[in-house]
């Protein structure tokens, strides 16, 4: 399946990109992060991240579908 990933803040700095499309067999965000984290050298553990799928917060075990937009959100610091 193909997923669209968006990166923000320190994750964007690490990956060097705002967004990428990945072909992956990962069935949920947990598997997807386990796949991309080593490739990009992402050192934030899943416990420190939240997940959004298609613009809404989602769980790590949310069943992903082809074409989903997936975002791993580092701890926020607005305001």
């Amino acid at each position, binding site marked *: 399946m193909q997923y669209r990933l*968006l990166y*923000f*803040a*320190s994750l*964007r*700095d690490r990956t060097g990109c705002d967004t990428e499309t990945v072909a992956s067999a990962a069935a949920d965000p947990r598997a997807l992060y386990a796949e991309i984290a080593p490739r990009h050298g992402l*050192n*934030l553990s899943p416990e*420190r991240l939240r997940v*959004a799928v298609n*613009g*809404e*917060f989602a769980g790590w075990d949310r069943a992903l579908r082809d074409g989903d937009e997936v*975002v791993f*959100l*580092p*701890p*926020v*610091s*607005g*305001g």
Partner: protein
Amino acid sequence: MSGFRLSDTALEPAALAQELASASAGACVTFEGRVRNHNEGKTVLRLGYQAYAPLALAEGERILAEAQARFAIERALCVHRTGELAIGDIAVWVGASAAHRDAAFAACRYVIDEIKRRVPIWKNEFYADGASGWLHPDGTPV
């Protein structure tokens, strides 16, 4: 017009406060968060904000709706900056109007606290020593 907004240009508090005015509102409380010249002992020169806009807007609206439900307010608004900011620039503006001041204070405080806790916006501080860093609050550097 939506109550929670993102802006990549300077905020205009007077115009925002005007949106809260109503003949029945006796109290208006506003919060301005401004870029400070220091943080955690380091001299800050400027900073930048990134937002995951669709989710930030949805979560910001949810927070304003929660404030409406919890407190006897008339209106609540919040605008958050994105992009590059200088010292003294307004990073976030929150306003709440109500018949009485208890509700206006409580709602304004609730909104800024929840915005900082929940809305996908990130701050990058640029320091006088040349370093910079995204803040991901919980003490651990990333």
